[in-house]
Each structure stands twice: as C-alpha cells, then as structure tokens.
C-alpha cells in the first residue's frame, strides 16, 4: 500500500458540471410547471372551486341510498358490456397478431415498408382512446353495440400488438437457430421456433387487455356505443343520482370480478 499520509477531506457526490445540469433541469421543470399552471387556470372561476366541497356534499347526499330497484334493468346492459369487451378483445387480438409479426424486427417480411406501416398502425391505435374510437364509430355506423365492439377491437390492436412484437423480438435466438438448422421453411420456423416461445406471453397479454377492456366498455355507452354506459348517460341526463350510484356499484363489482379472473388465469398460465 502506498504511504498516503494525507487523506482528502473533500469529496463531491457529483461533479460540478453534473450538479449544474441537474439544477438547470429542475429549474426548467419548475418554470414549465408554473407557466402551464398559469395558462391552464386562466379562465378558472375560483368561486366555483371554493364552492366545490358544498357541491360535493350536495351530490353525495342525493346519491345515497343507491336505488336497488334499478338493478334488474341493468342486467341486459351489463351482458352487453361484457360482450363488447370480450368480442372486442377477440377481434382486436386476431387483428393484432399479423401486425405484431410485421412489426417485429426478426419476423418482418420487409424492413423498410411493412415494418414502419405496422409500427404506425400500432401507435395510431394506441394514441386514440377507445372512447374516441367509439365516438367516431357511432358517428359512422350508428349507435349500438357494434360500434362498441369495433372501438374496443381497434384500441386493442395497438396494446396487444406492441407487447406482442416486443415479446417476439425477445425470443431466444438459439431456439430459433435450432429449428432453422433442421432445414425448416420460414413458416415452419415461425410456428415451431417463435410461436411456442411467445404463446404464454400472448395469452397473458390478451387476458390482461380483456380486463382493461371490461373497464373501458362500461363507459362507452356515454357516447352511445352500447352497454351499461347508456344507462349511465340516461341517468345523468335526468339527474337520477341514486340510479347513478347503483350503476357505479355494479361497475365496481364487475371490475373487481374481472380483475380477479384475469389474475387467476394469468397465474395459471405462468
């Protein structure tokens, strides 16, 4: 050991340059926040904000007790909602599979044309909330469950497609090489090398999306796309708050159930 008689009493956690950057970064964030806040609350009527607790108490009072007699009327819309979610997920997943294969670097038939298209489809589908899709579809093909199903399907393509293509890109190259070494055709390589590896992920992702879709389907009716959201919209329009509470309780119960089912199924898959 070299004889160092004088040990430094100075130690800096970060270099001065890095510290400066961090300070500037924080400053920029704060400045941005303040500016956004100003712009956002330009037209906010603060009197309303101050009044909010009283309003909340008022609404809360009107919401209780929930109108249990409303429950039978909600059963068919609930069935519709579940169908929207399930059939929509089914459609979305079926459409997402080819898109995912086109988007994955190791399985795409054309790097420069099909892959960017597939990636764009995925981003486009992801960026647009299912409620907006529903809005569009109701305007095009009219109100009803079909609009809801298609909306859910279109939204699901992006979600499932993204996770699926990431899973395809993460497959173990050695297993694929092994299949290729037997002299298999590209289609066989996919079905024997890649598909078995991504199958559990595929089921997990699909069930996960189904669970999310159940939540999203409950509100599609607000824009006319069928399901229990229609009843919600109707009740809100006439300010029938006890009915609204009943609907919310039902939605809550359904969401809890679907989350339990999805967790069980995904656990069984893993």
């Amino acid at each position, binding site marked *: *050991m070299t004889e*160092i008689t004088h040990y*430094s009493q100075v130690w800096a956690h970060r270099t001065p340059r890095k510290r400066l950057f961090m300070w500037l970064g924080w400053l920029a964030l704060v400045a941005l926040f303040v500016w956004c806040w100003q712009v956002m609350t330009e037209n906010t009527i603060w009197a309303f904000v101050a009044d909010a607790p009283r309003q909340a108490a008022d609404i809360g009072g009107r919401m209780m007790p929930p109108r249990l007699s409303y429950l039978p009327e909600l059963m068919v819309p609930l069935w519709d909602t579940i169908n929207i979610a399930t059939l929509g997920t089914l459609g979305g997943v079926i459409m997402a599979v080819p898109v995912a294969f086109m988007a994955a670097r190791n399985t795409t038939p054309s790097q420069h044309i099909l892959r960017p298209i597939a990636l764009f489809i995925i981003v486009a589908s992801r960026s647009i909330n299912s409620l907006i899709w529903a809005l569009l579809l109701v305007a095009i093909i009219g109100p009803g469950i079909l609009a809801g199903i298609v909306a859910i399907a279109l939204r699901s393509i992006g979600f499932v497609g993204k996770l699926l293509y990431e899973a395809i890109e993460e497959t173990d190259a050695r297993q694929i090489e092994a299949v290729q070494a037997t002299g298999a055709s590209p289609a066989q390589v996919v079905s024997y090398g890649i598909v078995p590896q991504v199958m559990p992920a595929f089921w997990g992702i699909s069930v996960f999306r189904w669970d999310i879709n159940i939540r999203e389907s409950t509100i599609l009716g607000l824009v006319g796309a069928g399901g229990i959201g229609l009843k919600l919209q109707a009740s809100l329009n006439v300010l029938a708050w006890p009915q609204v509470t009943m609907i919310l309780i039902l939605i809550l119960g359904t969401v809890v159930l679907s989350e339990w089912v999805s967790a069980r199924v995904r656990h069984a898959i893993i």
Partner: protein
Amino acid sequence: MLHLKGLGKTYKTGDVALSDVTLEVPKGQIMGLIGPSGAGKSTLIRCINRLVEPTAGAVMLGDVDLASLGKRELRRQRRRIGMIFQEYALVERLTVMENVLSGRLGYVPFWRSFLRRYPPQDIQNAYRLLDRVGLMEHADKRADALSGGQRQRVGIARALAQEPELLLVDEPTASLDPKTSRQIMRLLTEICAERGLPAIVNIHDVPLAQQFMQRIVGLRAGRVVFDGPPEDLTEAALTEIYGAEDWHAMRAGDAEQAEAEAEARARMEALA
C-alpha cells in the same frame, strides 16, 4: 464488553431458534461461531443488534441492555455495533464511497446524509479506510461494478466507518472462493487486532475458523454446546456440534477440496 445473559428466541409458530445462550466476549477477542445450518447462528448475531427481536434474556453492551431499549435509543446504540453481511448487502446502485459513508448515517442528521455533505473528518476517515482495505482507486465506482471480494471489503470499510466497539460478522466468506476467503479473514483479524475490536464471526468453514479465531463457540439447535480455544476442537467436540453424519460429510467434502487443490498445484508446477 458484550455480555449475553440467557438470550432466547422463540417464534410465534413455536419454533425455538435460541435457548438460554449466555456468553461473554471481552475486548479484543475474535470469537468464531460454528454449527450446522439451522442451529441459530444467524439468529444469535441478529438478536444482538435486534435486527431480530429476542424473546428472552439481556444483551449487555458495556452497561447498556440493548434488549430493553426503545426505538430511538436502540438506533443510537446500533452505531456502536458494526455488521458485515454474507452477501455483502451493499447498496448496489450507490458508489463505493457512498456505501462507506453510509456507515456514518447514525451520526449525521438527515439533511447532511440526503445532500451527501458529510463532515470533512468523516470523509477523511472514509478515504483512510478505503486505503486500508485496498480499494482507493475504486472509490467512485458503483458498488455493483466490483467483484465479490472487493464488495466484501467495502462492507468491512462501511462497518468500520461507524467506529464501532463490536463487530458482528455473518458468514463473511460464504459467497467467496477459497483464496479470497482467506484474504478476507486475514484482513478482518488484522483490523480487529489493530483496533482491539471484539468480533463475533459466524462461520461455516471449520478449518478457516480454526485457523483465524481465538475462541470458538459451537451452537447446536439453539444451545451452546462448545466454548473454548480452537485447539480444543477435537473430533469428539465436532461430532457433538454437527452430529456424526454431517461432520463426516463435511470432512469428506473438505478432503476432496484439498485433494483437488493439490492436484491443480501439481499440474501448474508440471507446466512451469
């Protein structure tokens, strides 16, 4: 210095991990703790600084009973006990220097530790410790960039940064290869001798214990069954601690290891 009086630990499920352990560790003594797995060695060590709560007995560090302290006092007393862990237990994403300085956490207020503005004395001491364990050049590297032996040395420096009056060492060599194990044990015993620091070392490698420890305590099923210098560790004593079968299996394992090492050395010499 450290006086355990009737220390016991019984879990809620009824499992008795420790039973009536009475020991005294005077200043400057390096004590090895041996025994089969499940004998309670780790539990004993953790009961001393109350990382595990003892259910019976007293832990006297000097004239303070650690077992009876409230949270705040306990934290203050923990500063006096440095602990070194089996799997190093460094904060991987922090640098070596930050890890060593984290030994001072009990001594500095929150704002100092948060902003990393430690007193100059602490920093100087940290550098001195890093030099002592031979890791000066690695001071600003992330802890997970180091090898196993190097990480253990950072762990030692961290424990020493507390300026402790007692060292608790939990299987320091379990995750290390034989050569590094010996280096670490040598470093530990040297440092303890330099500072007159008493230490309790939980160790599973009996030959290593015999080589480096001044006193050996054998634990079996939560009770002390042996207490004496390493020379007194006869076959009979070892069989009592480990049970006949286990001890023979361990001996066979050690013999195989020694054979393999001798063979490797012979091959190297043949090449040279």
